[in-house]
């Protein structure tokens, strides 16, 4: 039976040899990128001590590099970048909203509790 209501379906996500060459090139490029980012992170971590003047900058660059790595893993390795826009947003937006809220509220609270304890000890 011929159906015209189904246009795309990922079970048949096949591609040709030529397309494969292109995809593999992208995979190796991302590999190189992730390796370089990790190496830079370790080098920075070994060179700059926590608590030194440059530390806040280093800390934030760690966080940015981590998000960059995560982005490449999710979008390229997990193929989320190739999925429909709708699926992408269903997965990412609720998660980000909730996590940003949780991170903000708990880290802020952690600092406040720490201060309260420090005050109580004196």
């Amino acid at each position, binding site marked *: 039976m011929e159906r015209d209501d189904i246009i795309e379906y990922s079970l048949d996500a096949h591609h040709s040899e030529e397309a494969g060459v292109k995809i593999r090139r992208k995979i190796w490029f991302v590999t190189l990128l992730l390796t370089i980012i990790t190496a830079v992170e370790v080098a920075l971590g070994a060179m700059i001590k*926590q608590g030194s003047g440059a530390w806040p900058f280093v800390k934030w660059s760690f966080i940015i590099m981590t998000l960059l790595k995560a982005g490449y893993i999710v979008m390229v390795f997990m193929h989320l970048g190739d999925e429909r826009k709708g*699926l992408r947003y269903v997965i990412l937006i609720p998660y980000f909203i909730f996590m940003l809220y949780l991170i903000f509220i708990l880290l802020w609270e952690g600092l406040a509790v720490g201060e309260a304890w420090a005050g109580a000890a004196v």
Partner: protein
Amino acid sequence: MAGHASKQIDGKTLWGGKMSPFSTSYGKLMMWFFLVSDALTFGGLLVAYGFTRHDYLGSWPIGEETFNSLPFLGHGYPLIYVALMTFILIVSSVTMVLAVEAGHRMDKRGVIKWMIATIIGGFFFVGSQAWEWSHFIHGSEFGKVELADGSLAIVHGEFGEIESFKVTVAGDHHQVGDEIKAGVHGVTQADLMHDYQHAAAEGHIKDGIITLHDGSQAEIKKSANEHMELIVKESGGKYEMGTHIEEGAAAMYEEAINSGEAGRLIYGANLQQNEYGPQQYGQFFFFITGFHGFHVFSGVIINIIILLQVIGGVMHSRGHYEMVEKTGLYWHFVDLVWVFVFTFFYLV
């Protein structure tokens, strides 16, 4: 790639409503939903870690001071080992995505080759984590020391080798004049170290005399510790948190070792206490890396099952390798989580 084929699908493979939301298969969408929920679990754990860490601020251990060892090579290599573990996991993620790519070309041999590589990478990672745990639990040669003013400090330096224990007061096993040393009566250097650390933690060393398990007392013959540095993690009054003490560090450490007081030294880690920082640090280490390690382990098992199916030709006769893609999603997720654990547990 995924989602861009235009072949007609028969009604049996479609969802109940004869439609596929987001033009993706049921299994893949459910895998994504599972991964989101799992990501929330890991997110919750890491945020709880962040909360506790912000509570303690300065007394929280620093990754590069805690994890600075390599197998066979000893200390002085900050973060190299975890970086290597990270690299292994990233590479195994790459081999997995190559297996998925081979599957899209219906290249069975390619899928098998890359999945085997992925599984090997997974075993390497789990093995590395086992070493890391063992190292964390056994701790360093010096342990954490409580100084005379009550400050707690971690110790860096070169540990002077223990030569022997010369028995001066007999106990149940040893006679006066016995010299307990490595290589004699099956005693190893590790045994001497174990006895020494155990006695130091229990307060059984006083003025160079160690009281052994059997009640005998012995004189400790040991080379001096060198290049000692104490880093104060918790102030006891005299020293500020974060102070680095080099001058007189060896003597201050010896004072604690030879005090005969229990609890002045803590070696390694368990759920009650650890030499690296507050109690919760050890608990979070075991829980977060343990939970992640369990994910890796189950990922390896799932990969092996799928590999066997691929070898058996199940996917090929099915006409697609989507199952490889779905296990791939799980495997990449494990890698993704490790990227965050690496940053927030080890780096910052």
